[in-house]
């Protein structure tokens, strides 16, 4: 059974003819590719789908962007000739003859496209970012150039945008109480680096706990997830090394890879054959031009970034390693963040003791950056203990299960309605394709009118015609909330004509969640 490559987004599926949707299905134990581990391969079906963009939609999207660009030029022209008032900030008079700080084109997109739908982002909230959130109302009288706050607060918006997978963003409860106690004892800041005077006993406790949770020998925690990647990859690899990086890796990984000075080669997203081919070439031919063998190849030393998956995937919430039933000792460097599933802030790296000792000595963060704030550390400690079940309750386990249930339900219902949804069936991040630029803004606004907060993303975070709405499910969402949300999404989908999918799923009977089976059959 072949692993289907992701279809091209331009809608031209000529050669492949009738096979448009990349569904991958296989009975358990299917020999899909060459990763040999634990005697088997994937122990469970790997259901990922990336439905192709319908041709008409792609064409219309390009037309839409074309029209916007034309209008953009027109408006710029009018602004230059002072027919229209120029609203954005300008350089100081004294410095007008300095080399300009920004290139004009960088700002073209910003001025003419982003500005029109700017109100979909940076929405200020004023309550805990749980399943329901309160938002400050803001209006703009000059088409989003400036905002004013009316002072009213929109209450109880269903929050489908915050990364709150296990529902630990709470203002009451065991975690918050523990954090409050630590805050009154230790204060909010630390004022020193780890290597100097900033290594508190709380940090040591946290690191031991994280190592136990992940099943690795040792771990080290940092104050910011982004910085964990961008500062530690340069410590591990340097010139003369090779990094094989997935096409769609996060900005922090890309930055870390660039800063390290190693050679970077990119393989297609999730495509194992592309990766293997690159590996073979690299080993056989060595470094370009000099043909010397590579010192280290950073994917053979597997660096796994679990920023979103830790806590959210796997039967006991231990991330993607747990989800596939693999051994954490096989991953050389396990990285993750505490921001998403644990309701705190910061990142960690786990691995063998030599690795962590090396990082303690040579990492930028350890030497130059202030250590984590104590109440934040306490929040992580309490939430990890809760997930592991060590606090004496089953709340953690219940939440992990609730999240998996919510994910399956939500995805299935959306597919039934006819939307194009990307991604794996078990992933709590649900992208719903919008494609056209005007629909990005419209979707965000219409959902807010109906009291649901969603996240929409467009270019440059996604390819230009693949703009989407992204729902982040949480264990704190109850079934009622999901149903309300689904109803509203259905309405808006009809209003904006978002139901692009050509392939309708036969609706299944609602089955109660059964822990032991992870496959769903489709007839």
């Amino acid at each position, binding site marked *: 059974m072949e692993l289907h490559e992701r279809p091209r987004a331009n809608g031209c599926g000529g050669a492949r003819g009738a096979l448009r949707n990349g569904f991958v299905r296989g009975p358990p134990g299917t020999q899909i590719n060459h990763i040999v581990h634990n005697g088997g391969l994937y122990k469970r079906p790997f259901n990922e789908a990336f439905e192709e963009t319908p041709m008409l939609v792609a064409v219309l999207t390009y037309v839409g962007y074309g029209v916007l660009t034309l209008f953009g030029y027109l408006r710029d022209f009018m602004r230059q000739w002072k027919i229209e008032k120029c609203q954005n900030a300008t*350089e100081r008079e*004294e*410095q007008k003859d*300095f*080399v300009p*700080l920004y290139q004009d084109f960088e700002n073209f997109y*910003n001025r003419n496209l982003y500005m029109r739908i700017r109100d979909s982002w940076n929405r*200020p*909230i004023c*309550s*805990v*970012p749980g399943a329901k*959130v309160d938002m400050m109302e803001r209006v703009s009288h000059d088409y989003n150039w400036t905002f004013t706050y009316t002072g009213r607060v929109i209450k109880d918006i269903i929050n489908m*945008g*915050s*990364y709150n997978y296990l529902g630990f*963003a709470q*203002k009451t409860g065991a975690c*918050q109480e523990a954090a409050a106690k630590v*805050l009154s004892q*230790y*204060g*909010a*800041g630390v*004022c020193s680096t780890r*290597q*100097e*005077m*900033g290594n*508190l*006993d709380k940090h*040591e406790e946290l690191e031991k706990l994280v190592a136990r949770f992940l099943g690795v020998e040792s771990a080290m925690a940092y104050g*910011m*997830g*982004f910085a964990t990647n*961008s500062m530690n990859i340069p410590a591990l690899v340097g010139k003369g090394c090779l990094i094989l990086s997935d096409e769609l890796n996060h*900005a*922090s990984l890309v*930055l870390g890879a660039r800063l390290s000075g190693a050679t970077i080669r990119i393989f297609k997203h999730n495509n194992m054959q592309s990766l293997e081919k690159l590996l*073979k070439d690299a*080993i*056989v031919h060595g470094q370009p031009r000099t043909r010397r063998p*590579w*010192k*280290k*190849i950073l994917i053979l*030393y597997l660096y796994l970034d679990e920023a979103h998956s830790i806590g959210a995937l796997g039967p006991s919430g231990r991330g993607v390693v747990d989800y596939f039933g693999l051994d954490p000792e096989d991953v050389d460097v396990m990285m993750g963040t505490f921001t998403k599933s644990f309701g*705190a*802030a910061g990142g960690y790296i786990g691995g063998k003791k*030599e690795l962590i*000792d*090396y990082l*303690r*000595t*040579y990492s*930028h963060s350890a*030497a130059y950056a*202030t250590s984590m704030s104590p*109440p*934040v550390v306490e929040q992580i400690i309490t939430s990890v203990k809760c997930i592991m079940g060590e606090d004496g309750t089953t709340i953690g386990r219940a939440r992990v299960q609730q999240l998996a249930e919510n994910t399956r339900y939500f995805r299935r219902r959306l597919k039934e309605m006819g939307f194009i949804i990307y991604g794996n069936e078990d992933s709590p991040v649900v992208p719903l394709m919008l494609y056209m630029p005007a629909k990005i803004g419209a979707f965000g606004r219409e959902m807010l009118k109906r009291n649901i907060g969603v996240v929409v993303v467009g270019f440059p975070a996604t390819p230009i015609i693949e703009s989407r709405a992204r729902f982040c499910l949480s264990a704190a969402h109850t079934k009622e909330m999901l149903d309300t949300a689904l109803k509203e999404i259905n309405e808006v989908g009809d209003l904006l004509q978002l139901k692009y999918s050509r392939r309708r799923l036969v609706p299944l009977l609602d089955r109660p969640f059964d822990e032991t089976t992870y496959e769903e059959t489709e007839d």
Partner: protein
Amino acid sequence: MAAMAGVGQQWVLVEMVQAFYEAPAYHLILEGILILWIIRLLFSKTYKLQERSDLTLKEKEELIEEWQPEPLVPPVPKDHPALNYNIVSGPPTHIITVNGKECINFASFNFLGLLNNEKVKSAAQSSLKKYGVGTCGPRGFYGTFDVHLELEERLAKFMRTEEAIIYSYGFATIASAIPAYSKRGDINPRKARVTRRFIVVEGLYMNRGDICPLPELIKLKYKYKVRIFLEESLSFGVLGQHGRGITEHFGINIDDIDLISANMENSLASIGGFCCGRSFIIDHQRLSGQGYCFSASLPPLLAAAAIEALNIMEDNPDIFQTLRAKCERIHKALQGISGLKVVGESFSPALHLQLEESCGSRENDVKLLKRVVDYCMNSGIALTQARYLEKEEKCLPPPSIRVVITVEQTEQELDKAASLLKEAAQSVLN
């Protein structure tokens, strides 16, 4: 049909032969040479192809088997000074418990003593009760809280600039700010006319404790048309009459500086950093500052703590004067210790004590200084050596002991520290 084709072919052949006989001699020779050349090229090409793919499949497999990567990390010797951290039990405030021993804290950058301040803590507590701990998202996606907006406004007002932007990690502040304005091509001499030029300076240098000559830099700026980025992590909340930093200290118009960046982890006793300046410059970072767009926002309790700290700074402008007086006092008291020299300005709250004469290697210097530090710690003064990543620094400063002055230290404690350091230097270095 086939017969017709056959006849047709034959006819073409006859034509060809006829043309052959009728062509002039030079034409034939030229053609002949060309044909020979083509044949030669064909053969030599296959020869080259053979060279490139000279590794058979089996050989490739062997190479793959044999290839051994370097170990992921080289082993670190067990007694490396940076490996064994001091463990602090309890809060790192004025009286600190290090490795089980209670000491007076001369090592944390808690300049204004706000780490243990009750008002700051209670502001953080009420924020914790309202918002929980984390923000669960970046600024663009429901991670913007009203406390963030308030903090940005307050910082901009305090520094008297148009706008401010906050980051959730002090280190990331300047690390995201600079790349947002310069690209890789900016060092290219061919494009010298369109490269943007920047001077990046620190207000108070952490590694040397001295101050940057800002008025001269401003003159240079207008002469050579460069922009100035000022990093004020140590000088924010320390220099200047109201704590506004080095611009207030020198009395310079703040609009002359293009960007001021500082972290809130020293004077404000919180976590995170901020940049402030004109809207023209700061707004750009909201879309292209990597540490801002792609990272979760600052936990609200830390933002609330910073706001409260700012309130205290604004309400008590005389603490800056007090701090400066203490710095002067200890600076004077530490002069004349045999074996150690003081590096840093007299009003800088972070001084360095370096060895007057090095023993030859950096490692031995570090060991010697460690003995001084240990002596002091055993007698109740907590100090630390300044830590660097030796491979990464361009001009690595010599090893030194860092002495930090805070407003909470009393005069007796300052005197005690000075005399203890004298004693330690005597016993260890002589």
